[in-house]
């Protein structure tokens, strides 16, 4: 690697476009939002920058605190579900032949490339009142009633007078399904990367020396793949926390997350300063999570050196 001083012109030509774009079309806009978050609305359209902290204080109101809290636990639960599903999958893939590995990994990751909106829309068609799941449920209900009639129990209406569609959409359930469905690949990838590198002879040694499969998993496999777990958890948790589209389309009126509140401030309520404060709070949480990940990564690296 050479010093930039050796050919400053080439250095400048190569560095300029990206630096310009990053500063003008990314850092500057973020700076605008940051400044706006200390502003006050003076009329319907005007905002005055008074360096007030009122917008941040407002985020601590019970109503917003509840939504923030809800966003956190919904994201945490979705992350946990992703982990529970992704770990066995990543584990299985890491034991396959190289060719199969690539194929199976692609199969899991392919949906990730398909437009998130289209995937969410596909879920709506599955979960809605007259969607596929309810269609099958109704069919089963009719069949079950036929069977009941056949054995002479028809007039008791054991399964209710009429088929009631299952409430599968516009609630916390559909929100959770949507988050897990969309973000699962984010969990599989880092988990696979660590389990793949895990020296399988450690497992062999543990089993050989009399530890049960369960004990081996808890005391050997899991601790050794912890960096992947941490990476995956953070990679899923961050986008879940900031998601707007999934709660908007799949969550009901009371299954809203912080992203929806931010959007509402900008699109309907027209309270940009408050929306800016909320989005910076979301960013601080994100950076906190990333710092945590860097900390664990550094600790993991030190351990391996020892």
């Amino acid at each position: 690697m050479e010093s930039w001083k050796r050919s400053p012109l080439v250095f400048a030509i190569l560095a300029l476009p990206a630096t310009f774009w990053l500063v003008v079309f990314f850092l500057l806009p973020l700076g605008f939002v940051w400044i706006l978050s200390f502003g006050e609305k003076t009329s319907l359209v005007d905002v005055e920058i008074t360096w007030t902290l009122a917008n941040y204080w407002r985020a601590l109101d019970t109503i917003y605190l509840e939504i923030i809290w809800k966003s956190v636990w919904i994201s945490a639960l979705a992350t946990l579900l992703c982990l529970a599903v992704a770990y066995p999958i990543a584990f299985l893939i890491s034991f396959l032949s190289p060719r199969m590995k690539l194929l199976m990994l692609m199969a899991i990751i392919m949906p990730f490339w398909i437009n998130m909106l289209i995937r969410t829309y596909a879920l709506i068609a599955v979960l809605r009142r007259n969607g596929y799941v309810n269609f099958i449920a109704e069919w089963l209900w009719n069949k079950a009633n036929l069977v009941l009639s056949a054995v002479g129990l028809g007039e008791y209406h054991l399964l209710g007078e009429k088929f009631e569609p299952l409430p599968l959409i516009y609630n916390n359930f559909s929100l959770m399904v949507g988050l897990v469905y969309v973000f699962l690949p984010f969990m599989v990838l880092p988990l696979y990367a660590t389990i793949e590198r895990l020296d399988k002879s450690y497992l062999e040694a543990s089993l050989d020396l009399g530890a049960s499969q369960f004990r081996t998993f808890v005391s050997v496999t899991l601790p050794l793949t912890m960096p992947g777990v941490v990476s995956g958890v953070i990679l899923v948790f961050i986008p879940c926390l900031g998601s707007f589209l999934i709660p908007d389309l799949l969550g009901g009126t009371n299954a809203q997350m912080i992203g929806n509140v931010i959007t509402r401030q900008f699109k309907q309520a027209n309270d940009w300063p408050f929306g800016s404060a909320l989005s910076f709070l979301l960013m601080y949480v994100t950076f906190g999570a990333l710092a945590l990940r860097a900390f664990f990564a550094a600790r993991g690296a030190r351990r391996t050196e020892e």
Partner: protein
Amino acid sequence: MSDTTPAAKAVHREKSGDARVAQETTAIVRPAAVSSPARTSRHRDPVGPLEFHRRKWLWAIFGMTIVLLYAPILSLMAFSFNNSKRNIVWQGFTTDYYVRAWNNASLFEAFTNSLTIAIIATVISTVIGATVAVMLWRFRFPFKAPYEGLMALPIVVPEICMGVAMLTFFNTIHWPSGGAWPLNLSAIIIAHVAFCFPFVAIVVRARLAGFNRELEEASRDLGASEWQTFRYVIVPFLKPGLVAGALLAFTLSLDDFVITFFTAGPDAITFPVKIYSMVRFSVTPEVNAASTVLILITVIATIFAVRLQAPSKAVE
């Protein structure tokens, strides 16, 4: 220490160079880790403790996940050919909804807008991303680590924060939102480039890591100018990385909803934004048809990108 677990001891023994133990361990592990065609005939053997690829319950979880991941998408695609507005019971094959989607002027406009934005944003972000990747690969300069951190920022910042930032920015500087096509798309293109080029930079840098610097030196020694070396030595080597990065940028741009949703003016609608407004009202086969086309474009682009990045192709 007396309470050291047997497993830890074994590991320690192996690490400390006890060749016999190490040999035994690898000998036992190999059949599990490598599956060769010869082994398929022995499938009726009891499952070995480390033969996780033969555990039925693991495959069950895997299979269930695959079904749950693909069933909604495949049914969406299948029902785009369904001859029924109700969209749930199969009524026969038709391509009517593709024709209708094609003739739906606003949907078609949104689709062309999306493609235009994706193509322009891809070209710009490939150039920007590649140059900065070459710069970071070649030069040492003060504050390099923080610079690289800033470069990765657009990747980690939540989409919604970036969308909000773009909305605030273009609104504050009074960026013209109207204008003749494709000028009305300029704000969206700028925003897309801002989140696409760091991804291109990462892909190109990964490719550069395998570059033999002696080639560059040889080219200079033989009298090539800086530009000639770049054009005839570095760029040809980078080509697969450039194409993979460009395809990545293309899919990212085509896929984006949240940032576009905030940046788009009233007369600059992209395909995802249009679908969003349609989906809010109802689920129609027309949307299925248009989505199917977009899915196919994305899948094809992705397969190309993955094939270009496959390790076997990286070696030349």
